[in-house]
């Protein structure tokens, strides 16, 4: 059993979750590498009752009778951000986010109550066999609406799902190892025919709403189709089984998991060998996502130098991590009995380029440098400013208290800056840069030098400013 040090445990928390405080990181480190990963993956065993209570107090739609108006644009986002910050089952949230990006569906076209329902489907099957997850997503109302499944009929098929199923959800346009094309335009057309007639209905009963998938037989093309050179009367479910078993799918899923959780992949032969190593695990383990991700997170690749801080933080990671790592607070408020609510985290993440439930298109978000523009950088900096400067701790919103900041602050500027580097990372920042921040602590208004004293007034002004500046470092933008 490999050991796990503080940096490694923090890395695991940032990647498998959204970052943690020192207690959480220490606890994870004490479990060793495999133990820590098993703990994070076995999240159903983790007590999440505190979050469950908070959700019930904060969201009217969690208590029947439910009306779809309650599941609106702002509310479903406030719900998910509350989970992201407060859940002790962090990997459940991160894996759901991975699948949300992978099966990117957007509230720009799909009603928010169906987007919420899709989120429940994603998290229910997040670690299942890939075939099962893919089938459940394909039959889920949100996807049927998003990619026009509901109007895909015998005799005039709609190619949207047939194309994106292959291009984005399973194999990619070209095999990520060989570069060979994975399908033809004819395959797109034939696959589209296999999914004709796929529909859902809505059942309202006893104050709850459920959605049921069914196939409208007289709109389904029940004749033979030729897909990847094989001719059979393929049903949609047959197609899913067929595509899930392809080596190109195994490779593409590994490639996506590595890019999201480990490091940016290149087309080098070493990276291709890595892809095939893990693709084999998928193929040899009945396409189990759980087995595959366990192998990835316990791997030497995941803990290599190349992996640490190699990704640009997604906006959601930045805003949620800022709360979790620093010991700040996100009070979502409650709309029960007409209370006030806060959607600060969702709004800022959206302005930084990542609107949960609203990816830009079916290919999902553009990662790493895709997050970086002058507008989004300003939003990152301004989020940090808003966070550290909210002194209203009564109303719903995000804040960090003076007491919390004081508990991290030390008597010397050097130790103080280092402590904040650790809490907000641990960030690997050189001495020269650390000294720039120490100088900031020792500079008063109008640029005059002052003696640093860690009293309440300094905490409220300069320490808050210090946190803002640390969150503006390029190093802080990395995960």
């Amino acid at each position, binding site marked *: 059993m490999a050991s796990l040090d503080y940096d490694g445990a923090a890395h695991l928390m940032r990647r498998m979750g959204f970052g943690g405080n020192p207690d959480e990181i220490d606890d994870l480190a004490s479990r060793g590498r495999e133990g820590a990963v098993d703990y994070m993956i076995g999240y159903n065993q983790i007590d999440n009752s505190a979050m469950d209570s908070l959700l019930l107090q904060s969201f009217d739609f969690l208590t029947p009778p439910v009306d779809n108006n309650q599941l609106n644009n702002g509310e479903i986002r406030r719900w998910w951000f509350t989970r992201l910050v407060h859940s002790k089952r962090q990997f459940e949230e991160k894996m759901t986010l991975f699948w949300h990006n992978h099966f990117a569906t957007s509230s720009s076209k799909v009603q928010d109550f169906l987007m919420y329902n899709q989120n429940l489907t994603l998290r229910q099957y997040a670690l299942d066999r890939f075939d099962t997850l893919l089938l459940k997503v394909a039959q889920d109302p949100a996807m049927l609406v998003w990619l026009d499944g509901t109007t895909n009929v015998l005799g005039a098929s709609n190619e949207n799902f047939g194309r994106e199923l292959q291009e984005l959800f399973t194999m990619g346009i070209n095999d990520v190892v060989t570069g060979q094309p994975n399908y033809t335009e004819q395959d797109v057309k034939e696959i589209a025919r296999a999914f004709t007639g796929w529909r859902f209905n809505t059942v309202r009963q006893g104050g709850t709403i459920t959605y049921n998938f069914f196939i409208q037989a007289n709109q389904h093309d029940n004749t033979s189709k030729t897909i990847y050179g094989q001719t059979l009367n393929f049903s949609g479910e047959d197609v899913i089984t067929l595509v899930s078993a392809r080596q190109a799918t195994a490779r593409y899923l590994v490639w996506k998991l590595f890019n999201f959780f480990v490091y940016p992949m290149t087309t080098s032969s070493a990276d291709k060998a890595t892809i095939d190593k893990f693709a084999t695990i998928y193929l040899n383990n009945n396409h189990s996502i759980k087995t595959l991700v366990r192998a990835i997170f316990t791997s030497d690749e995941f803990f290599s*130098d190349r992996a640490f801080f*190699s990704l640009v933080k997604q906006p959601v990671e930045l805003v949620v991590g800022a709360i979790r790592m620093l010991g700040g607070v996100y009070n979502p408020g409650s709309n029960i009995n007409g209370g006030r609510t806060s959607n600060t985290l969702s709004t800022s993440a959206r302005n930084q380029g990542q609107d949960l439930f609203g990816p830009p*298109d079916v290919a999902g978000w553009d990662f790493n*440098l895709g997050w970086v523009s*002058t507008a989004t950088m300003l939003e990152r900096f*301004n989020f940090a400013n808003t966070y550290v400067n909210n002194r209203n701790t009564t109303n719903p919103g995000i804040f960090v208290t003076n007491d919390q900041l004081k508990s991290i602050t030390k008597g010397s500027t050097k130790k103080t800056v280092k402590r904040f580097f650790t809490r907000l990372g641990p960030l690997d920042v050189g001495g*020269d840069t650390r000294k720039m921040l120490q100088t900031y602590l020792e500079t*008063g208004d109008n640029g005059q030098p002052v003696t640093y004293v860690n009293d309440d007034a300094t905490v409220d002004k300069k320490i808050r400013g210090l946190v803002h500046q640390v969150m503006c470092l*390029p190093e802080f933008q990395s995960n």
Partner: protein
Amino acid sequence: MPVNRRQFIKRSASAVSLSLVLPKFWMGGLARGQGIDATSRKIFVVIQMAGGNDGLNTVVPFTDSRYAALRPILGFKESELKDAQGNSMILGSAPFGLNPAMTEMKSLYDSGKAAIILGVGYPNANLSHFLSTDIWGTANTNGGLGSGWLGRYADQKLLGQSGLSAVNIGGSLPKALFANKVVIPSITSFNAYTYQTDERFRGDRNNQINTFHATNTRDFPVDSFAKAISEAGVDAADGAAQLQTAIAAYTSTVHYPVTGEATAQVISFANTMKMVAQIVTTIPEANLLYVQIGGFDHHSQEIGTAADNYTNKTLGQHANLLKAVSLGVKLFYDDMVEHGLADNVVLMTWSEFGRRPNENASHGCDHGTGAPLLVVGNPVQGGKLYGEQPSLSDLDSAGNMKFKVDFRSVYATILDKWLGADSQSVLGASFGNVGFLG
């Protein structure tokens, strides 16, 4: 255990590598007209219509014998090609009509300020949004890899110029503007574009700004994420204040619609064009502007509303978006006229592909190929059609139109005839002159 310097600040392993040199954009402040000869300005505005605009319902080939058969529900009859006021949308004596929503574009066409290039595409068209958008953005038909065509233009012609010479209106930089050397700012709203510090302690603001500057102007290795991020951050913070001051000087009598006066998309795009107007009229070196309008991927419900079962061609998603483009461009054009810049501006629309001639059963169309592209401005030899409309009786094996004009020749025409660049070096090869700029 001490950790080594990590990948983030080492060379990035990412396949997309941008080596960014500190731009001179904000150094020395905005030129504010010093030494800039306004009459020589060549402003170029690119309008990306994202999703695959249905060209056949934008410029309607109503005399093509196959059009009605392929578009039984979506297709326009000749008698339907008139706008809400009853004015004909037919383009002179040519057998084409503009979609009825585009009444403003029609008036620009009739007064010789807009030209239409028919049948634009490229060989072996790719029907993936993302690949085809990359192909158009990079002008690289072999996989769409590399820098953007306008990024390469900016690296050649704009690097070293002081002031703000190029702006993207939007939150993420489009592929077309990916450059190797210059940083092109992206702006979503002028209000949000400032570096904020604690209002309670204004005396500390300069300390924060100085600290921010110091930590973000460190040397990072070429190709590292840290380098790209720090440069974007500095560019943003430094440029923000200067931009706010500059655009505060904008005045205009042109009325861009506000809430309640039009649909959300029409208002949104009009205000995007207003931002372009605010920038070009107050910042004399700002000559390359890029905007986007999305939502054109009409696989279903392209026309009409629920009330008419998606059959009313004068209403619906596509009509609404075309109205947004048409009105937005016209308001912007009027603003240029008011500011004496009408002779200095050329606009171009583009979309990553057209749509399938044969409509589907969802009242939409799947992805297609060759589609028309619009170019607008006083310098344009407008009121004419360029290129050639692909015949609907000669479709390819996938049922798509055969393109007639390579999009790179449209780019070449703009680069050579308007931007004073060498199209061959920007595009990597020679493409013909389409003719809309003489």
